[in-house]
């Protein structure tokens, strides 16, 4: 027994080293695979406060940019509003007798609620990029919700604390987004291959589909994370490789991740119902 203690004492540095490394590997594996309950991350209260302080300073240098983005968004929204107003003037069905028409078409009730959030930490140059947002459970944000900006898809919420949340950016090696090409509804999967933060790949588009440079890629809406038709980007190059049965398509992302200031968290009020139905039917969600 004494020999054992002597042995342990002699190699204590090495043993502690091994123990700490095992702990680190455990943390890496757990954090990368396990959604939810991770306490030590940038959604933590104190960490969030430091990051918010930092972005409070750096945000001043981006005010001009933020302003122009918001103004542009306002213009688009106003344009849409005008269209709706005109349509409602022409279309008078809602005024007709309710005995002939079902007034409450449940599909028309928009099931998505948006929570606006400020980006207080952001990266674009790492292999696995993440965002920290200054919204949390107090604002109704929950893990697994989608994150969009005014001009396109951004990512997905990973962990949430009371006032902060972290999100996996689209620029993450394990992030997959179900997308489609707008003009012919061809399904594909958006994946970021690393490197340039302005381009991603659109995988699994079969070779018979006709494509052109500049085609718009939007979300498919096949999962509950993003609504259908949110902009992802435009096709910047299409290549046919001899040994593959799918196109190699590069997509220029609509969102400039280096300039993100404000984003919206998509709260799908019908997620639970739909997921339960699909689970009961034995259908696995097409993304994790």
């Amino acid at each position, binding site marked *: 027994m004494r020999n054992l203690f002597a042995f342990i004492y002699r190699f204590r540095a090495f043993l502690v*080293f091994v123990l*700490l490394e095992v702990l680190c590997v455990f943390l890496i594996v757990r954090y990368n695979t396990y959604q939810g309950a*991770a306490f*030590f991350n940038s959604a933590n209260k104190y*960490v969030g406060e*430091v990051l918010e302080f930092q972005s409070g300073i750096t945000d001043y240098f981006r005010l001009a940019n933020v302003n122009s983005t918001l103004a542009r968004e306002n213009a688009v929204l106003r344009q849409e509003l005008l269209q709706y107003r005109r349509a409602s003037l022409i279309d008078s069905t809602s005024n007709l007798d309710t005995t002939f028409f079902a007034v409450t078409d449940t599909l028309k009730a928009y099931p998505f609620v948006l929570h606006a959030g400020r980006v207080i930490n952001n990266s674009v140059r790492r*292999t696995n990029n*993440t965002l920290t947002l200054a919204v949390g459970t107090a604002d109704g944000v929950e893990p697994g919700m989608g994150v969009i900006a005014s001009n396109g898809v951004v990512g997905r919420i990973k962990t949430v604390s009371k006032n902060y949340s972290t999100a996996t950016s689209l620029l993450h090696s394990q992030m997959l987004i179900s997308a489609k090409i707008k003009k012919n509804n061809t399904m594909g999967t958006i994946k970021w291959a690393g490197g340039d933060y302005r381009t991603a790949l659109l995988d699994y588009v079969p070779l018979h589909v006709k494509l052109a440079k500049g085609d718009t890629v939007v979300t498919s809406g096949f999962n509950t994370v993003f609504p259908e038709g949110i902009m992802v980007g435009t096709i910047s190059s299409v290549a046919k490789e001899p040994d593959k049965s799918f196109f190699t398509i590069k997509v220029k992302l609509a969102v400039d991740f280096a300039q993100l200031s404000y984003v919206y968290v998509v709260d799908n009020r019908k997620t639970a119902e739909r997921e339960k139905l699909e689970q009961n039917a034995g259908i696995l969600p097409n993304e994790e």
Partner: protein
Amino acid sequence: MKSSIGLNNILQFLLFVALQILLMDNLVLYSTGFCYIYVAFLLFLPININRLLLLFLGFLVGFTVDIFYDTMGIHAAASVLMAFLRPLLLNLLTPRDGYDISDSVNIHKMGKGWFLAYTFTLLLIHHAAVFFLERISFDDVLQTLLKIVLSVLFTGVVIIILQLLFFSPKRTSRA
């Protein structure tokens, strides 16, 4: 030889971690050159420091950076590895007549050759660990190697500048 950590080292810890999180996070050269300046805290610790303490300090500093970077465990693992290898490297680099009482990690005191060998070897180990753990796989090795080399140069140059600016030839250590 000073072997325990003093106020100086605690200040350095706060300073380097703050520098890392607030400034260096935004300072990346060509998307490949990263500056992990917090490593300087481990490099500048007393030469004769207890090995166990060094390991725990390595874990602590790596873990702190991990929390802010959302890379749970990666920087901690690399820092612990570096902390483990530091005494071995110091042994290898022992001057002809052993370390002096007043010796500390200081470019003026220990000479340029010793300092460069010490710094760049440990930086190479640390950065290689970080970038390979980040990728996990060995695909795209060239890109990863390029990242490692450029980042080691970047961090190394910053550390040398810090030494020349803030570490006077006369006093043993000053932050």
